[in-house]
């Protein structure tokens, strides 16, 4: 009797708290979605609907005109090119930077865990340290280095900067992941006659899916969203999307076309959103696998 009644209250309080928790979560969710709502809604309105007030209203006239304009004909800096060329600039920078930094991180992780050498922990510590260096500190030395290497103002210069900055993180991810990868497998492969790179390609990489996804998402979002390096080191024809978006919004000529700005901002955020949607569920899994046991 006693136990039944206590169980009963336990279930009831459970329900009440759960309902409360869901309510709070729902409110938080709405709150976080609010900016997205505002952006989407206003990017499909004619400009006068926005300037007339009522930012939260649904569009009375639905139009994709602002999207088309943001993409291909808006005034960016001096030319009416739209964001399109800068989008491709970003892609040309992000894809190699992500690929190179991830592969190098994987190789570093492999060496640091399976081909230990004297001083390897110190080296790893130094690489970790790279994760904590603020961007601003390296701006001037980096500009000088890029100049000396003849990479100033080029996409490859930006790729180099992002690879150097990303390697600390990717190495950390892969090192922790490979630290729990059974060393006996490496030894078995050595006895089987596989060399350094064969072990890496045939044994290690095929088992690295989850952590590779983590590394790719992390690097992709960081590099795509970077503004400071892009603004500092890019030349006129290598400016990434973020810098172009800023130029679009900041341009002082004529009226401020908020609907075009909103559409442009969404365009700039779209690739990272896409990456999360496609690979997001592997992200958490990979993070767990890498960090909990590491």
């Amino acid at each position, binding site marked *: 009797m006693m136990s039944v009644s206590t169980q009963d209250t336990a279930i009831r309080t459970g329900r009440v708290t759960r309902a409360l928790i869901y309510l709070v979560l729902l409110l938080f969710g709405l709150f976080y979605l609010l900016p997205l709502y505002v952006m989407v809604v206003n990017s499909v309105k004619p400009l006068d609907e926005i300037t007339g007030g009522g930012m939260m209203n649904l569009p009375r006239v639905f139009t994709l005109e602002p999207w088309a304009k943001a993409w291909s004909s808006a005034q960016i800096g001096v030319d009416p090119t739209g964001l399109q060329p800068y989008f491709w600039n970003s892609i040309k920078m992000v894809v190699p930077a992500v690929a190179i930094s991830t592969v190098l991180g994987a190789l570093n992780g492999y060496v640091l865990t399976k081909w230990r050498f004297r001083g390897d922990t110190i080296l790893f510590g130094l690489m970790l340290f790279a994760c904590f260096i603020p961007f601003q500190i390296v701006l001037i030395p980096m500009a000088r280095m890029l100049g000396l290497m003849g990479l100033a103002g080029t996409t490859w210069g930006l790729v180099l900067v992002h690879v150097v900055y990303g390697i600390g993180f990717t190495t950390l991810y892969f090192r922790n992941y490979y630290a729990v990868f*059974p060393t*006996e*497998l490496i*030894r*078995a*492969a*050595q*006895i*089987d*006659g*596989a060399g350094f790179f*064969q072990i890496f390609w*045939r*044994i290690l990489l*095929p*088992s690295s899916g989850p952590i590779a996804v983590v590394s790719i998402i992390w690097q992709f979002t960081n590099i795509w969203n970077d503004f400071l390096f892009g603004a500092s080191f890019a030349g006129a024809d290598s400016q990434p999307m973020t810098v172009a978006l800023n130029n679009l919004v900041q341009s002082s000529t004529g009226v401020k076309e908020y609907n075009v700005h909103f559409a442009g901002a969404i365009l700039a955020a779209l690739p990272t959103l896409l990456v999360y949607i496609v690979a997001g569920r592997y992200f958490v899994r990979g993070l767990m696998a890498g960090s909990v046991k590491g």
Partner: protein
Amino acid sequence: MGFLDIDNTTKSYGAVEVLHKVDISVEEGEFLVLVGPSGCGKSTLLNMIAGLEDITSGEIRIKDQVMNGVHPSKRNIAMVFQSYALYPNMTVGQNITFGLEMHGVPKPEREKAMHEVASLLQIEQLLDRKPGALSGGQRQRVAMGRALVRNPDVFLFDEPLSNLDAKLRVDMRTEIKKLHQKLGTTIVYVTHDQIEAMTLSTRIAVMYGGYVQQLGTPQEIYDTPANIFVATFMGSPAMNVVPATVAVENGVPMAVVELHDGSRARLPFSQQNLAAWEGREIMLGIRPETITDEDAADRKSTNIAQMVNRIVVTEPAGSDTFVTMTLGGKDVIARMRSDADVRPGADFTFAVNMEKAVAFDPATEMRILP
């Protein structure tokens, strides 16, 4: 020169020497078992034979070729690991042929070798599965298949059965033994299980603290252990080792041991050469199965001594009953027939087969008899 020579080999990590001058020569077709408690250096020695660990000093030779500094894949050895170390992303078939592929063997030959090994180990129906979808025993077979397919000079096993449950372990033990008899390969096998060591090996190296304590056939190790460590490590239950004093009567040396009530039993040795120890203390080693009731005493033995002592505990174990008594101030276990009439607290006349008794020097712990 043997087939596999481990010649004065040592291993140090920094300033710490973990293996001291190991000297073992293995003949072709031998099954050598390295046995010892955890941390005694068994895996280290095996890994040095495999080339996975450097040799600090000394030499390891296979077929008279010095192996120091030779890459593992060039030693023509194969190894079965404790965790099996199957490549998780490859199928069983790919696991088995990976080594051949790395050695540049053409595909048709690889396939042929794979099917031969698979049929030998009865894993043909598993060839397309991933290791994750196999039971422990099946993984064990695949790991052996991967070793066998290379047709190596020496097989190395590092505790291959320790991840299996008790029943499967016994089955696989038999299977490894059959395989060895059938193929006649040279095997070095690491285990900390002394029963595995006794049943599988043609010779055993008992290791402790980085030293090989004794190297010999299972029978030698069991009957004439080199020291107290080997005596108590090999055999289950362990050999009883109790303090005794040597007395000589009519030229026959005796072990004088204290019974439960402080009185003394006199147990004559079969060997004569103990005169130097008269009046001095020794450690007397008696295996549990050599202490029985009078009816069950070994008829072939020429030296059965009798001793009346009090039974402290009896432990029936089905086929045998283990009886604990106090001898020389220590608990001593006797292995009796299950129908022996033993009751705790009762005095009982034990028959001790002194032909099998062993004596140790209490200071050095080395064997002095037989």
